[in-house]
């Protein structure tokens, strides 16, 4: 095979991944998040829940250069590939960490495919970005955008923008006379309307553009192709996040099964608990292997990258739903309480499941390649 045997996972990447894991273990994003959630629980009468991320952690990431991890060197970045980016995203998922890095990594790979060195330089300078490419019905594919471009002026609303509240600027897909183009608009040029969502670790929102000036990232007509080329990277990043979260769900559920005693035994003794946990491990491992394979294909065997990325996200979507379901069920009563962290991962996984298409959708696209 054209791919290196070790998934292109070299020592540097290993250190990066361990570093990310350590950082989240120190910063405890969920512990910080919990404090912000107090009083917001009640869906009807709880207080508003503004999007949140730990600015200090973000600054530390920027200090470590993670924001520009995948930015090419000629744009002032580190110039690492998807293997490294997916490795970090996996740790973000494991920590369920709210962070602008998620959107920034996604935007980076789009900008790379658009050869937008100027905007990549912005990223390198520490500008947090997010993708704004989806229409109101949540359809997939660039052509679903409801934003219209008139010359360099954008109007309309971009929907389901992930972590919109954390971004300094947006890469927007817009429809122009000559087709879809990609544009960059700064945060302060637009209005961001936060959605009230289930997932507690993301802040999703709508980006409302009111004829604001935008910088062209990909000319009208090229936008769809650019997004299409970048899609394998986007699919792989989300799948990596799911893989990390699934591993957390597996370990947490296994640990609970070792300590929770019912009928005079730790519940992990009972096959009704033990075997589904094993099935969680099998699902998590299948996804994880497909993620590493997809990241490696992007870096080393681009012709095969789409197939591998579809495989990874298809598997990841199913794993997300399955591990979310079992982790809650096997925790018993405590599993459906607000205070148990499994619910936070449950919601994040259910959300991630649908980003860039669910399992069936990705398998349908995959079938077209077989």
């Amino acid at each position, binding site marked *: 095979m054209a791919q290196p045997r070790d998934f292109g996972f070299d020592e540097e990447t290993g250190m990066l991944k361990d570093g990310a894991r350590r950082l989240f273990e120190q910063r405890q994003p969920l512990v910080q998040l919990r404090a912000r959630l107090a009083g917001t*629980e009640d869906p009807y009468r709880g207080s508003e829940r503004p999007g949140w991320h730990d600015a200090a952690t973000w600054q530390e990431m920027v200090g470590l250069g993670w924001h520009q991890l995948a930015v090419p060197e000629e744009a002032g970045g580190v110039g690492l590939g998807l293997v490294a980016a997916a490795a970090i995203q996996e740790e973000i998922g494991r920590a369920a960490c709210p962070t602008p890095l998620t959107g920034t990594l996604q935007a980076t790979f789009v900008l790379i495919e658009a050869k937008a060195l100027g905007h990549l330089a912005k990223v390198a300078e520490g500008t947090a970005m997010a993708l704004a490419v989806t229409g*109101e019905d949540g359809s997939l594919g660039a052509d679903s955008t409801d934003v219209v471009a008139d010359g360099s002026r954008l109007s309309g609303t971009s929907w389901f923008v992930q972590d919109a509240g954390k971004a300094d600027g947006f890469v927007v897909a817009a429809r122009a006379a000559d087709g879809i183009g990609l544009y960059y608009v700064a945060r302060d040029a637009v209005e961001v309307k936060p959605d009230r969502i289930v997932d507690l670790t993301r802040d999703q929102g709508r980006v409302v553009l009111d004829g604001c000036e935008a910088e062209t990232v990909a000319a009208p007509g090229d936008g769809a192709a650019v997004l299409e080329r970048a899609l394998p990277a986007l699919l792989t990043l989300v799948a990596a996040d799911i893989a990390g979260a699934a591993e957390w769900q597996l370990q947490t559920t296994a640990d609970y099964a070792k300590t929770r005693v019912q*009928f005079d035994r730790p519940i992990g003794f009972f096959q009704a608990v033990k075997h589904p946990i094993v099935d969680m491990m099998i699902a998590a491992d299948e996804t994880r292997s497909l993620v590493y394979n997809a990241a490696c294909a992007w870096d080393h065997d681009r012709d095969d990258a789409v197939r591998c990325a579809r495989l990874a996200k298809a598997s990841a979507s199913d794993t997300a739903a399955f591990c979310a379901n079992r982790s*809650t*069920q096997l925790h018993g009563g405590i599993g459906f309480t607000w205070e148990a962290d499994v619910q936070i991962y449950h919601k994040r996984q259910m959300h991630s499941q649908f980003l860039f298409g669910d399992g069936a959708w990705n398998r349908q696209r995959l079938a077209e390649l077989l």
Partner: protein
Amino acid sequence: MAEKTSSAEQYEFRDYCRRWLEENRPPPTETPLPQAAYEVTYADHRRYLCDWQAKCYEAQLIATDVAKEYGGHGHSNFQAIASAEVRRARVPYFINWIGLGMTAPTLLVHGTEEQKRRFLPPIFTAEEIWCQGFSEPGAGSDLVSLSTAAVKDGDNWVVNGSKVWTSLGALASWMLLLARTDRHDKYNGITYFLAPMDQPGVTVRPIHKMTGEAGFNEVFLENVIIPDHYRVDAVGAGWKVAMSTLTSERGAAAGVGAVASSESPLTAVLKVIELARRTRRNGVAVWDDPVWRERIVKLYERTEAAMQNGRRARIEALNGGAMRLPLQGKLVGSEIGQELGAVALGILGLRSSLYVGDEHAEEDGHWALAYMNSYTGTISGGSSEIQRNILGERVLGLPKTK
């Protein structure tokens, strides 16, 4: 509809119920009511629901067949009709469902004359809300291992311990309490009490579920005093009494008119089909995506099967034993409900992220709530794992796991 072919006055009563319910349907609440009665927490919801139950009691839709001396209306074979009409009318649920569904049937069977006269009337009128104190933090699926202790002190019992998953705990003035009166006898060391909640030793702490709703509570009992005449049946008979209500719950409920008038599973599936028809993604209705349609129709198939199971359960020649199908109901119903929630989210895709209060959320987040609340169904009241043990052991005669 009534079980047996209806006599003339049963028809008349049915028409009366139907008419009354049409004419007295209450206006919707400002904040929508929770999907299930055990979620109620707000004072305004409480007032609204208590008034509604009292009104239904006045109208003889509740306690229809209960004797007059206990506050009932003294009819016979009318309750099933009233309950069916209430269910049919899709009016709000009765807030005192534990009182109607568990306390009343228990007292009618095991209660003293004094207890029946004292407790039944305010249950029917919702003047006294009841909650249930069975589960404990350390004893979930393994209910019988409960450790809350009741110690005799003169004519009173002094209770110390804590209970969990107590629905309506914050609104109730009385609790059905299981407490240990003998630590050396697991099954015969449990006694059944009627515990007054309005005393200093009782602390109620709401438990927020993953939905954010706070219907469940943790109840801490510190030197709580219960007069001995509030004990139900003999000391040590608690487990027997509890089982008799738990198992006869549905049947008993009909006897006093506790009906969760929530929508039928089939209605829910048809709503999912409608959702799939009107939800368009990538230019096509989800219903026209064969992969999703297959999953939805499988759900429809299993729901219809569950309904037909209920029909077959009543036919001795075909039900394979009296308990075989009824014992499947909770497991199958709750797992179908969970799949239904998951399918609905799948149909909505990205849009399933929009939750209660979001102006663009589908049905104000109904499906996300339904999905998350479905875990209450598969976990509480005997988890699916426990249900499979029960079915394997009681119905198929397989060796007991424990």
